[in-house]
């Protein structure tokens, strides 16, 4: 009976049941407990547009320059997206093409203080961000959604426009490189927002009025 028992033990995994049974659980716990870090480093193409014939000051806040977003996922890994200076690169590229003369300033006050040099002071900010990994049975995509706020002021501090603009991107989920998939989705969301800023900023009624005023003043 002893030998039989030994055979059975070998065949039916009695020697180390706890280790084998808990292994998948440990793997799941290890996976679910970790936080994926997703650095976003990308270049933005130069927009193919005619610049608006105005001189503007732009102020980039610290929160925009070094933005991080952590998405906490229930029963899954958390995702920390580090935009780093990607926002700064994006706005420098966009505004540099959108306005004939662009001057970065150290603070909004510095822009208002030198108001006579500019037709407006622009302050971009990141308002909100959300990301979502693939969900079993629902979506095979990594998704990213990002919302920016673009504020423009007259040199006398009167607001011209306070505009919210969003971008959405998604990328096919990759089991081997999930961080890369989310990075792609984030870059697509930023490009989507960038495209909307380039095309739709000058279509905002208040901006059109302001541009008309500038043209009138030049004449």
């Amino acid at each position, binding site marked *: 009976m002893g*030998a*039989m028992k030994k*055979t059975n033990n*070998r*065949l*039916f*995994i009695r020697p180390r049941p706890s280790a*084998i049974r808990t292994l998948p659980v440990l793997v799941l716990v290890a996976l679910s407990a970790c936080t994926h870090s997703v650095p976003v480093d990308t270049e*933005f*193409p*130069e*927009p*193919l*547009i*005619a610049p608006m014939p105005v001189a503007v000051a732009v102020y980039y806040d610290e929160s925009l320059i070094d933005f991080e977003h952590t998405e906490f996922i229930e029963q899954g890994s958390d995702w920390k997206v580090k935009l780093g200076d990607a926002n700064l690169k994006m706005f420098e590229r966009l505004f540099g093409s959108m306005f004939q003369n662009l001057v970065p300033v150290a603070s909004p006050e510095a822009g208002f203080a030198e108001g006579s040099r500019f037709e407006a002071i622009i302050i971009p900010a990141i308002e909100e961000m959300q990301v979502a990994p693939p969900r079993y049975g629902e979506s095979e995509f990594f998704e990213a959604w990002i919302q920016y706020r673009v504020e423009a002021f007259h040199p006398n501090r009167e607001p011209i426009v306070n505009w919210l603009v969003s971008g*959405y991107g*998604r990328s*096919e989920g990759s089991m081997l490189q999930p961080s890369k998939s989310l990075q792609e989705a984030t870059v*697509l969301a930023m*490009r*989507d927002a*960038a*495209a*909307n800023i*380039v*095309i739709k900023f000058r279509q905002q009624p208040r901006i059109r009025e302001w541009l008309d005023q500038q043209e009138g003043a030049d004449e």
Partner: protein
Amino acid sequence: MNKTPGMHSKGYGIRFGAISVFVPVTLLLAASGCVNSRIEQVRQGSTVLQDGEAIVILARRHDHAGETESSFTDCIEDKLAKGDSPLNVHPNKEFIDAMFPWFEPSVAPLSTDSLPQLLAHPGVRDKIEQTGVRYVVWLDGSTERIDSGGSMTCAISPTGGGCLGFGWWEDASDYEATVWDLKSSSAAGMVSADVSGTSYMPAFVVPIPLIARTQSAACSGLARQLSLFLAQAP
């Protein structure tokens, strides 16, 4: 008392024998799924690529539903650029970057009616001429699982494992390629591929996948038809 180990030894012999037969058979059959495909074409104008003219393959992504997979776009681009009668294909990423922001998913023109307005923007027509792109091929569609069934049970122990059961699933790959002529700001035609196929996976110790590669068949069929549609001038 010694019978039990003996029986198990015999069992191992059958299983390893089975594996040695099933694995090569599996590999052979894995590529032999059966698909039904229908390729259609509608031509609205003559389409011949002259010297220095190129095409670009772009995926429609404006509504994000049934979005064309980037792997499918790459497959079409690759087959058209390297087929029997290769076409001059401009890399799509390069084109979208050069034209930024006009071909980004949410702002790209949805119909040829918008083309004159797009080309009227400063620099757009010149940039298109620089790229040499004459035709834009818009890809729309995706591969979806439309049905599945069966059941399979797999078990594993320190001495081995195996599966028993039968599973199946049906995929449909429906794609449409719309060709725009940027020179005349008009639609040149459309090619579509509807491919469906059922994959099977019987499992007796080792699962044997009989995969119906619908997306691959749709890519080959659509690329073949597009290369005829957009023949390069001799």
